[in-house]
């Protein structure tokens, strides 16, 4: 067969594509369970980071997770518990929930019992930065008012600018901030250094040069925590009883 002919070239590329496709599908199928496990461990690690625990190895991550996050359940945006299966709550993808109507969202809550046997609650948040998705976890005290810790991550923010939300210097600012002011729900705002929110809400300093990512963090907190506000209300009511 003439190797320079069009038929040969087209046949050659067609066969090549089929072979390559089959090989890649095979590799992807074989490695998927292992990769999913890594992603699961990474998620646990991020959740532990929000409550100031950083295990050294992957095996210790699972151990620490099982030790500290004793319970998980899911609530709707009216604050009612709609599910008590911990695995189901862990599997919920916050970004997908946010695409649903507010009333239909299933919001996971993780109960954290620290070494000081204080009960705290961890909630995932998800939003958009400048270049792509950003997400994180916010842990609140058992009264549902004060933030105990926060963790944020991103998929592709600018290194040195927006990507700084990943750094502990930014995340540590959230500790002790309050989500309620005189009974009114006001999520923490992210403001340029020197500015204050007019609403009187608690605030943290934004990343300089990362304005849009910082705004993204603020919007993410506002949108996601508003969904949780009914649940947080029940927490603070129970607490004041």
């Amino acid at each position: 067969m003439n190797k320079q002919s069009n038929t040969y070239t087209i046949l050659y590329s067609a066969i090549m594509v089929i072979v390559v496709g089959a090989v890649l599908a095979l590799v992807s199928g074989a490695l998927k369970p292992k990769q999913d496990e890594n992603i699961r461990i990474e998620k646990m690690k991020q959740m532990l980071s929000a409550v100031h625990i950083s295990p050294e190895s992957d095996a210790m991550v699972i151990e620490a997770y099982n030790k500290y996050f004793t319970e998980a359940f899911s609530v709707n945006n009216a604050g009612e518990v709609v599910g008590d299966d911990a695995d189901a709550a862990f599997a919920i993808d916050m970004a997908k929930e946010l695409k649903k109507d507010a009333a239909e969202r299933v919001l996971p809550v993780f109960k954290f019992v620290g070494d000081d046997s204080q009960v705290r609650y961890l909630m995932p948040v998800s939003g958009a930065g400048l270049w792509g998705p950003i997400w994180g976890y916010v842990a609140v005290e058992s009264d549902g008012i004060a933030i105990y810790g926060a963790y944020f991550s991103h998929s592709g923010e600018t290194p040195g600018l927006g990507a700084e939300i990943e750094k502990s210097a930014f995340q540590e600012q959230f500790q002790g901030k309050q989500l309620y002011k005189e009974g009114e729900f006001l999520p923490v705002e992210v403001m340029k250094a020197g500015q204050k929110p007019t609403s009187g809400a608690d605030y943290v300093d934004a990343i300089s040069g990362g304005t849009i990512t910082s705004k993204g963090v603020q919007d993410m907190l506002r949108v996601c925590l508003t969904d949780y506000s009914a649940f947080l209300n029940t927490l603070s009511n129970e607490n004041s009883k």
Partner: protein
Amino acid sequence: MATKIKEVFFNPFSKNNPVIVQVLGICSVLAVTAKLEPALVMGISVTAVLAFANVIISLIRNTIPTNIRIIVQLVVVATLVIIVDQVLKAYNYQVSKQLSVFIGLIITNCILMGRLEAFALGNKPWPAFLDGVGNGIGYAIILVVVGFFRELLGSGTLFGIQVVPQALYDLGYMNNGLMILPPMALITAACIIWVQRSHNKDLQEK
């Protein structure tokens, strides 16, 4: 024949090193050498991709239609790179996160296309394999040397383990933050080129 095979394998280490003599693949030298571990993993990844791509192209070299040979080379390299990426995600997730986009960018590494076009298309699989491994190692050596100096001077660690003793810090020694930044990778690579050329008369331009 034996000496030719030897040359194919050993020349890329020093006399014809892809990074410091041919000055190819410099952008990944900038990007992944702030720490030693990602530098080493990147070196191994490139070596694996290059060796297998060379063998595959060499095996099918007589069947490839000339007018789409670059596309065929790209498809082979891209497939291997995706496999490497998937394997890293499964077995070394932390490093795969650090290397992120740079594993994918192995495809654009000039060393690969250069070796496929210049060597694999015209040689038998065994020499092609040795050429791939040789060039991969030649690339990895430079990455590791640059990574070694950048991590040691920039963070005081090697493979993440503290090697600069605390006593030295107490005496006022400080990590050089500039070493972490990309420009120092170029300067370190340039120093290696300088040392190598001053030892190797053949490489000096008149």
